């Protein structure tokens, strides 16, 4: 009987120990209050440690540097105002050089070595996709991805994509093409990779759902690193299009526009992805395509007005005065906004489950994006977008919003 009692006690002690050390999510408890609140890793009474992974060195750091600065300036602003529920946000930054293997290492380091509460603003499709499995397996909240990969919308409940994915954007482009441009002969020129293929599929799906498939006359592939765009442009030209969808990233799309200029195809409307809705794109594309650029339209998901940008401008001027303010800075800022909106909603329920539950009811409309909302099983991110047109004044090119925000329903 005594031996059995000892055995039972041992089992009880072991069980308690295992619960205490077992999962990273409930390593800390505060038991002084009447209700016990489980705190996840990275959370203390006065701080919240989070991590981000972005390219900060090498050829693509022109994306990562302003992006991280935008995010960090938002957290600094929040901390100056006292933090979130008295907790200051501490951001750990990892540089993955835009390489998927380094990205996976960085994510693992953030989760297991730094023991962060959440990953915020992981930048770059290759790295995001490569580390998707580990994030899913661990269940750590991952908020905002600098990626339009479709897989993120179905990756799991702990994933909170914000940027529109390329498949959805492609669908919405078809709606704009039909309803706003009233285009009868559409040609889609797409970059021959995951980005372009998602956009192409989305566009075709959208036209099909709208019952307007016949408007698409040709699908023309091009390489993002090509040095000669004569063939794709000629193939498009043969169709005598009234609208060309340019679904590719900046280098290839700029190359196509310059090629159109050289081959005298300067009077056709073009519509491109939100990835190119940035002044840095205009700076490299416009001088080589001074006429073709005037017919360029871009998708956009940020509501950028002087008033809405003021807090970002102020924070950047204060904390990162030498860093340019561009679309990447704004994206980083939105990553910060989205994460903090979830924190505020979660209150003191700062376990991973508590945060995910809070995010599932989020409907955030106070930030730079028109609306960010999630519900159980729904991870579409931003679904409302508008179209802007390039306009020129005294040799300076800017984007001017020409439609209201719409979504594909």
């Amino acid at each position, binding site marked *: 009987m005594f031996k059995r009692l000892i055995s039972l006690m041992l089992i009880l002690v072991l069980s308690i120990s295992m619960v205490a050390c077992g999962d990273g999510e409930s390593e800390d408890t505060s038991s002084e209050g009447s209700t016990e609140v489980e705190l996840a890793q990275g959370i203390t009474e006065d701080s919240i440690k989070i991590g981000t992974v972005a390219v900060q060195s*090498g*050829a*693509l*750091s*022109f994306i990562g*540097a302003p992006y991280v600065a935008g995010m960090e300036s938002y957290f600094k602003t929040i901390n100056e105002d006292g933090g979130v529920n008295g907790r200051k946000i501490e951001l750990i930054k990892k540089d993955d050089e835009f390489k998927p293997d380094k990205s996976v290492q960085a994510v693992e380091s953030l989760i297991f070595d730094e023991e962060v509460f959440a990953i915020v603003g992981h930048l770059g499709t290759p790295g995001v996709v490569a580390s998707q499995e580990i994030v899913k397996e661990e269940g750590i909240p991952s908020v905002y991805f600098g990626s339009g990969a479709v897989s993120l919308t179905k990756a799991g409940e702990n994933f909170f994509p914000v940027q529109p994915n390329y498949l959805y954007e492609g669908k919405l482009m078809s709606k704009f093409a039909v309803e706003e441009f009233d285009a009868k002969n559409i040609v889609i020129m797409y970059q*021959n990779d995951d980005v372009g293929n998602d956009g192409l599929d989305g566009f075709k799906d959208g036209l099909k759902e709208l019952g307007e498939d016949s408007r698409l006359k040709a699908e*023309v*592939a*091009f*390489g993002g*690193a*090509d*040095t*000669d765009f*004569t*063939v*794709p442009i*000629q*193939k498009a030209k*043969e169709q005598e299009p009234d609208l060309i969808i340019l679904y590719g990233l*900046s*280098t290839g799309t*700029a*190359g196509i526009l*310059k090629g159109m200029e*050289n*081959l*005298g195809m300067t009077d056709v409307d073009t519509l491109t992805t939100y990835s190119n809705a940035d002044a*840095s794109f205009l*700076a*490299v*594309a*416009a*001088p*080589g395509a001074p006429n073709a650029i005037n017919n360029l339209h871009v998708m956009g998901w940020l509501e950028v007005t002087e008033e809405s940008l003021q807090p970002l401008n102020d924070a950047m001027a204060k904390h990162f005065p030498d860093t340019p303010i561009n679309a990447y800075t704004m994206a980083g800022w939105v990553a910060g906004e989205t994460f903090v909106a979830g924190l505020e909603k979660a209150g003191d329920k700062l376990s991973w489950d508590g945060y995910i539950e809070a995010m599932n009811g989020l409907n955030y409309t106070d930030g730079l994006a028109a609306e960010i909302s999630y519900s159980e099983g729904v991870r579409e991110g931003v679904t409302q977008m508008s179209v802007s047109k390039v306009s020129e004044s005294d040799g300076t090119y800017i984007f001017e919003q020409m439609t209201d925000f719409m979504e594909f329903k």
Partner: protein
Amino acid sequence: MAIFFQNIMAGLETGSLYALAALGLVLIFRTSDVINFAQGEMAMFSTFVAFTLFDGLGLSYPLAVIGALIFALLFGFIVERIFIRPASDASLVSKMIITLGLIMIIGGLASAIFGIDSYYFRQAISADSIDAAGVVVQPNALFIIAITLVIMAGLFYMINKTKVGIAIRATAQNEKTARLMGIPVFKVYSMSWIIATILGAIAGILMAPTTNVSTTMMAEVHLKSFIAAVLGGFGSFHGPVIGGLIIGILDNLVGMYISLTWKTVIVYGLLIVTLIVKPTGIFGKTHRKKV
């Protein structure tokens, strides 16, 4: 038919740029057996210098280009003198690894000095296009093709008709014997690096209006120039030029008449088949040792 000739014209233009870069590779290879993997990075750096002189210092385009070519001259000399010559007794593999290391050094320096953004750089000739029976001909494209042919002819003349050429050929054939004959082989090496760097700079400056000036601008061109040199044969100067033009034209014709999506696979598949049939390249010679 106009579409066909349009593709040929565009293929000749881009092919010429591959050819220019390939000529630089071949020149260094023929004199020292070394393949300069950093040729693209060196060209990128010189292009940045041209852009900075033009855009940053406000020099006229011709002056900026001349300035960049002078820089390329010094750049080629310094690289050979500091990085390659001290390793003259090292194995060929070691020398090639040095050129791989140069990629990292030059790339890192370019990012630190010129920044990480992309910049637009104007065309050499910015006159209006000419419509020739439905084929749009850009004066800039004609200029690129012409300059490639002139440089190829100049190199051909220099190699075959001048004392410098004899020195290069002798050094390429047997360095020790060349030295015994009084040929300053190190000067020959130095000169080949200088000329190759200048050729790379010309290719970079002419390519910049399409790819923009950035630290990654020459990646595709360098790869294709290497393939052009292999296809045409590293043993001749006209081979890489024709190899470059073949790649430029074939890329377009396959894309236009077979498949745009599969053109890369088809074109390079064909090139591999060519090399299986003739491993030394189209114009390469097989050297047989006599017993």
